[in-house]
């Protein structure tokens, strides 16, 4: 046996103050939630993506040399990646969509359009002169020949002037994309906020008052939700004229029904809780019970619904813009970018890639985050 110091056998000094103190380091609810969310990898990736996206949407356009509205038809439809040729010290690439040759600097900046020296419209040939060398372009076969022999490309080059290329009016796609992110995200956040306020208070009042009030309020919700929401939004947009404000208004006034239902369900179960009766017994008013005691306890499901509402608002906005009811040109949203890209889909299919990727990646990110939040906010899932 190891020696035990004699003072260890002395009686413990009692501290009455500590008698009922639960000493375990207890985390508050939100610390716990944060820890669980942190461990959820898809949710964190989603959150990271959303943060990067928001920062890019806010600050990106400030650093871009281009803006979303300047047109330059000379530089229309330039791809983000092209095959370069070199003849007599001049680097250029061939844009097969509009039969133009563009001069490119060694770094990959697009310098300018090369003028053909001779056009033969019957043979469908164009002639370009580089020093003493002649390059023939066959517009029908879409081939380049140098002195009769096929011209070999020197390699691939990223477009450094317009990272995502340009659209059919020569506007920088990246700048428009970032600007579109501003519009799309603003629409989504504002519409979600409107949904949040209407839904939470409507659902809260309906659930708390119950009885006949609840009956009438929920029937109204049912009437709104039986009309296909997309149809309803389209009808509203037709009446309201298209534009940023009306998109927000249309989405905001229709999509709150889900939120109202969820909040009502939560309140219905929560209002039977003892602490609500206790608060009433202490003289708290209805409004106070609702805002102080009931709604803070429904914050979990509300938060999850909000994160799930954002992607659907983005999607609805994109859809509206896609069918031409959204923001008006030259303003861009991801939806208008998509619809513009669809117009030139056959010649430049890659133009569809960026807005489509932006929409779907954002939807994924919000959905992953929403899923993660739902898991993190549910204490029963604690491991």
């Amino acid at each position: 046996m190891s020696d035990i110091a004699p003072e260890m056998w002395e009686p413990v000094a009692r501290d009455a103050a500590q008698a009922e103190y639960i000493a375990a380091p207890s985390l508050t609810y939100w610390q716990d939630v944060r820890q669980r969310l942190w461990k959820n990898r898809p949710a964190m990736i989603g959150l990271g993506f959303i943060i990067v996206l928001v920062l890019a949407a806010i600050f990106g356009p400030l650093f871009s040399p281009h803006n979303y509205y300047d047109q330059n038809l000379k530089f229309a439809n330039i791809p983000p990646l092209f095959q370069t040729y070199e003849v007599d010290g001049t680097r250029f690439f061939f844009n097969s969509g509009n039969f133009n040759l563009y001069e490119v600097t060694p770094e990959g900046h697009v310098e300018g359009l090369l003028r053909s020296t001779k056009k033969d419209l019957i043979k469908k040939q164009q002639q370009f002169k580089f020093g003493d060398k002649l390059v023939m372009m066959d517009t029908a076969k879409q081939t380049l020949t140098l002195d009769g022999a096929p011209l070999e490309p020197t390699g691939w080059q990223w477009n450094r002037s317009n990272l995502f290329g340009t659209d059919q009016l020569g506007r920088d796609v990246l700048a428009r994309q970032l600007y579109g992110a501003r519009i799309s995200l603003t629409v989504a956040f504002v519409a979600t906020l409107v949904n949040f306020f209407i839904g939470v208070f409507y659902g809260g009042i309906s659930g708390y008052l119950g009885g006949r009030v609840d009956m009438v309020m929920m029937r109204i919700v049912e009437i709104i939700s039986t009309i296909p929401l997309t149809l309803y939004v389209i009808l509203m947009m037709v009446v309201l004229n298209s534009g940023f404000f009306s998109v927000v208004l249309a989405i905001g006034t229709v999509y709150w029904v889900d939120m109202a239902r969820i909040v009502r369900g939560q309140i219905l179960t929560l209002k039977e809780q003892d602490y609500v009766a206790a608060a009433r017994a202490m003289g708290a008013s209805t409004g106070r019970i609702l805002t102080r005691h009931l709604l803070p306890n429904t914050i979990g499901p509300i938060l999850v619904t909000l994160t799930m509402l954002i992607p659907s608002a983005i999607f609805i906005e994109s859809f509206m813009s896609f069918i031409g009811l959204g923001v008006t040109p030259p303003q861009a949203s991801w939806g208008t970018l998509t619809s513009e890209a669809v117009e030139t889909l056959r010649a430049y299919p890659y133009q569809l890639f960026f807005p489509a990727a932006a929409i779907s990646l954002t939807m994924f990110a919000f959905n992953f985050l929403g899923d993660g939040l739902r898991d993190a906010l549910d204490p029963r899932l604690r491991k």
Partner: protein
Amino acid sequence: MSLLSVKDLRTSFFTSRGEVQAVRGVSFEVRPGEILGIVGESGSGKSITCMSVLRLLKSSGRVIGGEALFEGRDLLQLDDDDLRELRGNDIAMIFQDPMTSLNPTLSVGEQVMETILRHRKVSRAEARQRAIELFELVRIPNAAERLKAYPHQFSGGMRQRVMIAMALSCDPKLLIADEPTTALDVTIQRQILALLKELQSRLGMAVILITHDLGVIAEVTDRVLVMYGGMAMEEGPVRDVFKRPSHPYTRGLLASIPNLRDGTHHRLKPIPGSPPDMLRPPPGCPFAPRCPQAMRQCVAVMPPVFPIGEGHDARCWLHHPAVAALEATP
């Protein structure tokens, strides 16, 4: 002059199955500074009686008759604003389960201060000071620090102390404690009861203590009201009722508490049967089907209240002069 005087209170719940008559004409009085115990089995209507008085019934419940005079004002007729002013200020309530009676998203200090700020014209700092005093009053250690804690950081006993602090925050004249110790373990029950009793005598408020534990009644209360089937079966001073239980139901309750003190081993006597269906209450005495001394009269006609002694009444046909005369003759 009594503080609270309840006369012929009737409360029903209107459910899909029909009208459940939870309280059927209960009358009692609470005098300033006294502790009234209301005792009875689950479903006897004791909690509903008090909830009716404060009008805290769930949506399907409705008071259909009677009056509840608090300092001369009928609580059942008061408008909502005046009633809210009164709740927590003049009449406070403690609930059965301290684990669910506190809002998990607010700190305990915040919840105590909320009641103070609701009823007193004081600044937040003053309310905080008052909350600290209250925490010290109910013996929560490190009061100032524990104000910031959340309910889940407290044990059941501590939460009940918080509830008591909250109830006492505006010096109520009447405190209704609805089974305040039922959800706690035995050692904590003692502490809470002792605390309640001490605070009651120190602050001079009246208390209605609802319980199903006659031991608690014997220990803490001045007068007792025995309820069964939504009615008062017997009412009187505690000593008198324990010495001379005048209703078979009271006798049954007394026989079913274990007595460890006198050393003799005798079987506990449970009361056979179960409480009546309040959807279709029997026409006679509600206890008649389970009563060992039931007579035909008991089943057929509701017994009136017979005086037994000084402030001691029982609702039982056994006290009818004719029955006494019958027993006298062999």
